[in-house]
């Protein structure tokens, strides 16, 4: 890797980490996801800063091409995240539906109460 590439990669991964921290700071990211993404950011910075580390881990695990190890782990991780988000979306949809049903019921209740009150006021 040339000096230039190394610098660009390092700056990139530090920016990603900074972005995650910033989202956290502005409370745009729930705490339960925060830890996960912080770890991802830190790991990213470590591997860009010390590329030799990846090569060493890959050879220790018996993976011939170090980047393949990176891709494998990344894909596994991303599949996990997407699955989790699908689950989260299903749960949220369910909650929204129940709220919508309750809102409709409450609106009818309020309308009927208002009507009753109006009738009562008129007879008084």
């Amino acid at each position, binding site marked *: 890797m040339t000096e230039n590439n190394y610098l660009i990669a390092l700056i990139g991964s530090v920016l990603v980490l900074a972005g995650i921290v910033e989202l956290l700071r502005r409370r745009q990211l729930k705490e339960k996801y925060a830890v996960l993404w912080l770890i991802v950011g830190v790991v990213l910075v470590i591997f860009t800063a010390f590329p030799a580390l990846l090569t060493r881990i890959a050879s220790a695990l018996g993976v011939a091409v170090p980047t393949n190890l990176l891709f494998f782990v990344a894909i596994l991780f991303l599949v996990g995240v997407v699955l989790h988000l699908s689950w989260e979306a299903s749960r949220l949809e369910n909650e929204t*539906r129940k709220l*919508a*049903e309750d*809102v*409709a*019921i409450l*609106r*009818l*209740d309020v309308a009927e109460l208002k009507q009753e009150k109006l009738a009562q006021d008129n007879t008084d």
Partner: protein
Amino acid sequence: MSASPVLRPLIVVPAWNEEQTVGETVREIRGVMPEIPVLVVSDGSTDRTVHIARRAGARVLVLPFRLGVGGAMRAGFRYAVRNGYDAAVQVDADGQHDPKQVPALLDELGQAEVVIGARFCEQQDGYRVSGPRRWAMVLLSKVLSRLTNTRITDATSGFKATGGQALPLFAEHYPDEYLGDTVESLVIAARAGCAVTQVPARMRPRRGGEPSHRPVKSAIYLGRAAMALVLALIRRWDITPVPVPQLRPAVEEGVP
């Protein structure tokens, strides 16, 4: 049976943009059974459904966006439970279900907690299907008949009466996915130990609106029906009905 086992029934009419038919349907129901209140659940309608249903003398639940038949019906069941009704009958807004047959469904609620008004029970000539659609119906009826220990010929009929323990159960767990309001709801009822039965009901041609299944799509329908059935069978359901707080006793008739 002369005396109905149900004391306070409610008729629930799910409606999504049914301004052409909902008024006539509500008037017809009220003409046949003036003592039973009608609740129209407008499923995110963007036309005049709400207004027309109200004018026809129905109470109207207005869902803020579209939830599908399952969601609309669950809202209806929850309304029924909260307001102290002991049975809910689904009657479609398109006029397919004949209100004159509602009492027959309600009468059966003494023996069962879910009563299906089924097409092609006996000598039915009005409703014919063939090909993959027919296989789907045979598959559904075979599996569901075994599960509920009763003969169910028309699992996908929306014309249903719900009472007893099934009402609070459906108020909490009525499914909203494809075929969920028909197939999966029967599976849930059977799992919860609710008795299911069916009575023959003659369906009428729809007064308007699009049929929800086109014959061209029958093969896809078979696949989705099988998928829905498998999902319903393997799903875990926490079927202890959650007690819903009774907000207040129900008001007797529709909103003036």
